[in-house]
């Protein structure tokens, strides 16, 4: 068993040990093409590591928590995060580590290297898929190279790889990761070349940037682009780039820097050089007998091929495939910073203005015709914001993931979601709203007279402090009736709010500081201690971005909810007019228009009815333990309150276990009353999980069929450490 093979010693018989990338490099070398000095850490090294540490079965257990087909993308991301943490926390056994370390040190001594994945499986098909696994550039020294090889091993189980698991034949038993360690050629010009244009078979493409090609590959730096004729190898066209930045090596990695003016004025390649690059790529194509996608760099007028693989694109036959979109959510720090600015400075203020503007319009004075138009206008406004939500707000949530990985890499904590504690002392709008609810409940608690009055006639003294505060709450957050009824009965009345307050008031006030601030401070300190002074500023920036991302994760829905509430209010007004008409309380007017617009928007007249399990069949199925994802640590037992429709929220009682399909941010006001949260939708960063963590509640997400398997009144135990929901007391 050889843990390491130099490129010059790799032959076809090693294919299953070195993967496509390493094999291609060895073939290029053999055919006389210049490549950087290259070592391959074989799949045997990976196999020895996962066998000796017991990781192989740990990964299998993670992957078999539930059926893949039932996992949302967020759960797959969580799964990949947990597996990555397993790798980070499991050191490479000493004999393997010391063999690898000394091989790296003696081969590269102090030289910078690139550490790249070279995935392998039984038939070698995985080799040609780009972007599923990690690569690192500008790594120096045996120990650091080893650390990055470890990270590349972990990336065999990246979320992207898990999403494309069928195409690449990913399996715990068979798959392994080889790693290419390659001297870093600090090229003056770099790029990629396709010997066959994916869009036009008679053409080839060369793309080039100044400096290293990481910026091009990651889409951060715009390249100059040449289209060539495959047969004559003549240039057909050149599309120059704006040439603002380049990627340069820094202490540990590479970073984007402004391109000096004099450099930016020239394309990275002269015409002749474009042809030289293309010729070298064609040489690779002739050698491999198939069109190639190559990465190259030029230093001191020598063209190096860094890698070569067959031209392929990841496409699924399933027309409904959203995986490309999911993967596009992976954003760079720079990209997220720009997005943050736009969201905080432009989009959120515009949303607030929009909701305010709409709320000022008195719907009752509109003619039927105008009301119909208003419904349609509001539908369009809401639709526009929903689109913005998907295109801008959801991708921004990736800031949390970026920090999660950053934190886990640096701290290697036992709990791979510990990083959330550093984010959770932000002031989310929903938490502020709940604090206001708590204040109102406190007034009722301390005023028996008021409490009795509310329970009796429900009348509130208009001038009382309580009423003033209730009205302030309604002004800021609405009366909760829309939330409680799912928009089907926006009463514009105080009853739903008062009912919730009365329920809250029958129990002692909730500790507001359940979020362990002290612990957060300690974690933060420990996190920053991992970095030297120069790196600390970057760590602080990533944390700051993640905090904004985390806060927005909930706030955006509240703001979106305000706009939706305005649409619902108009729909409600239209419905009232139609019902008045039925009862002959008003003349027909343009009522037809209203009916038409409601039908066009297909807004349900009544909440959907949910089928509930029937019992009484001779064979009865009952859940006992259902496994989901641990999303908030802690354990709690209580009576289940299953939310089939928003009206069920009105029945929510202190100490109930909230069981729902998905916690809608507009219904999180019941969370402080809950003992735990169980959600069908999976993921660590969904609203239910975030709000539960904020209140220190045990939370399990991703429970398949949660709202049909569990019934209101069932005794339920929620284990937020293991992600298990146990139904019933266990009596036989």
């Amino acid at each position, binding site marked *: 068993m050889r843990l390491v093979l130099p490129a010059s010693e790799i032959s076809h018989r090693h294919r299953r040990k070195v993967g496509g990338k390493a094999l291609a490099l060895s073939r290029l070398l053999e055919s006389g093409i210049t490549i950087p000095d290259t070592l391959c850490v074989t799949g045997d090294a990976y196999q020895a590591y996962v066998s000796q540490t017991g990781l192989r*079965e740990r990964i*299998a257990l993670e992957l078999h928590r*539930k059926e893949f087909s039932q996992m949302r993308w967020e759960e797959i991301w969580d799964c990949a995060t947990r597996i990555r943490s397993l790798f980070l926390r499991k050191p490479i056994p000493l004999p393997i580590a010391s063999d690898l370390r000394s091989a790296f040190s003696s081969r590269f001594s102090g030289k910078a290297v690139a550490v790249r994945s070279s995935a392998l499986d039984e038939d070698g098909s995985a080799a040609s898929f780009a972007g599923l696994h990690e690569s690192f550039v500008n790594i120096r020294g045996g120990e650091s190279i080893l650390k990055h090889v470890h990270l590349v091993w972990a990336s065999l189980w990246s979320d992207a790889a898990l999403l494309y698991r069928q195409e690449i034949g990913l399996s715990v038993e068979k798959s392994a990761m080889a790693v290419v360690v390659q001297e870093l050629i600090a090229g003056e010009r770099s790029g990629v070349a396709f010997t066959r244009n994916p869009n036009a078979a008679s053409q080839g493409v060369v793309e080039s940037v100044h400096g290293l090609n990481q910026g091009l590959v990651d889409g951060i730096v715009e390249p100059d682009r040449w289209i060539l004729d495959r047969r004559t190898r003549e240039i057909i066209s050149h599309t120059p780039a704006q040439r603002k930045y380049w990627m340069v090596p820094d202490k540990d990695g590479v970073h984007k820097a402004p391109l000096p003016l004099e450099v930016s004025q020239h394309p990275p390649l002269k015409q002749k050089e474009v042809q030289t690059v293309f010729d070298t790529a064609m040489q690779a194509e002739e050698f491999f007998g198939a069109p190639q996608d190559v990465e190259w760099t030029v230093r001191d007028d020598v063209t190096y091929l860094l890698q070569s693989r067959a031209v392929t694109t990841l496409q699924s036959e399933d027309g409904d495939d959203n995986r490309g979109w999911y993967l596009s959510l992976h954003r760079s720090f720079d990209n997220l910073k720009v997005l943050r600015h736009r969201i905080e400075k432009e989009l959120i203020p515009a949303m607030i203005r929009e909701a305010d503007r709409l709320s000022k319009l008195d719907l009752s004075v509109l003619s039927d015709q105008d009301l119909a138009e208003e419904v349609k206008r509001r539908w369009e406004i809401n639709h526009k914001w929903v689109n913005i939500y998907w295109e801008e707000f959801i991708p921004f949530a990736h800031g949390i993931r970026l920090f999660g990985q950053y934190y886990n890499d640096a701290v290697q904590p036992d709990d791979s979601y510990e990083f959330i504690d550093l984010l959770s002392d932000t002031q989310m709008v929903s938490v502020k709203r709940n604090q206001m609810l708590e204040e109102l409940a406190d007034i009722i608690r301390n005023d028996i007279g008021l409490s009795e009055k509310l329970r009796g006639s429900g009348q509130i003294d208009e001038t009382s402090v309580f009423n003033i505060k209730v009205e302030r709450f309604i002004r800021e957050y609405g009366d909760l009736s829309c939330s409680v009824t799912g928009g089907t009965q926006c009463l514009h009345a105080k009853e739903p709010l008062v009912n919730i307050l009365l329920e809250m008031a029958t129990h002692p006030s909730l500790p507001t500081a359940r979020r362990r601030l002290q612990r957060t401070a300690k974690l933060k300190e420990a996190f920053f201690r991992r970095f030297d002074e120069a790196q600390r500023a970057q760590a602080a920036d990533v944390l700051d971005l993640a905090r904004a991302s985390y806060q927005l994760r909930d706030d955006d829905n509240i703001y979106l909810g305000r706009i939706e509430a305005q649409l619902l209010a108009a729909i409600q007004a239209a419905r009232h007019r139609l019902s008045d008409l039925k009862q002959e309380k008003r003349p027909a007017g343009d009522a037809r228009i209203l009916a038409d617009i409601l039908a066009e928007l297909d807004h349900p007249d009544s909440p959907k009815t949910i089928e509930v399990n029937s019992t009484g069949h001779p064979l009865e*199925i009952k*859940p006992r*333990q*259902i496994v989901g994802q641990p999303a908030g640590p802690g354990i709690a037992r209580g009576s289940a309150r299953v939310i089939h429709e928003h009206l069920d929220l009105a029945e929510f009682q202190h100490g109930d276990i909230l069981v729902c399909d998905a916690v809608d941010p507009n219904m999180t006001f019941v969370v402080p009353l809950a003992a735990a949260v169980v959600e069908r939708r999976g993921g660590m960063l969904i609203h239910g999980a975030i709000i539960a963590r904020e209140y220190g509640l045990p939370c399990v997400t991703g429970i398949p069929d949660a709202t049909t398997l569990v019934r209101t009144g069932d005794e339920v135990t929620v284990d937020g450490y293991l992600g298990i929901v146990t139904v019933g007391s266990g009596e036989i």
Partner: protein
Amino acid sequence: MAETDDIRRQITDLCSSQKLAVLCTHRESQPYASLVAFVTSKDLRYLYFITPKTTRKFKNIEANPQISVLVNSSENLESDFHRAMAVTIIGNAAEVLGRNREGPIKRYLEMHPYLEDFAKSPTCALVQVKVKSYFLVRNFQNVMELHIHE
């Protein structure tokens, strides 16, 4: 119903894939586990095994008919942890006598042809367990219950 069918099918598949099960009996507060060759009825209402009447397990059953049986597909491999399934069965056990033995013995011997002499020995009892419930464990920690009502 789809869920019921799915659970029932998985229990049926698991029970028919295994030849041996762990039987738990008890007497005077002392639990006692033993290995038995078993077979279940097609409708999952009954489980059968054969035991010499001189055994502890048989004496325990005579004293306390409530028993439990564990069937599992583990192979003593690391991969068992994510792959193996187990079902815990509870019910009441009683010896089957006379002509009622014929059907179950035939089914039992189809599963365990090598046990013919054992099954037909006059010193052995055919024990029928009237199953109350199955507790199916999959994916390491997922547990679903199948209860059989009268």
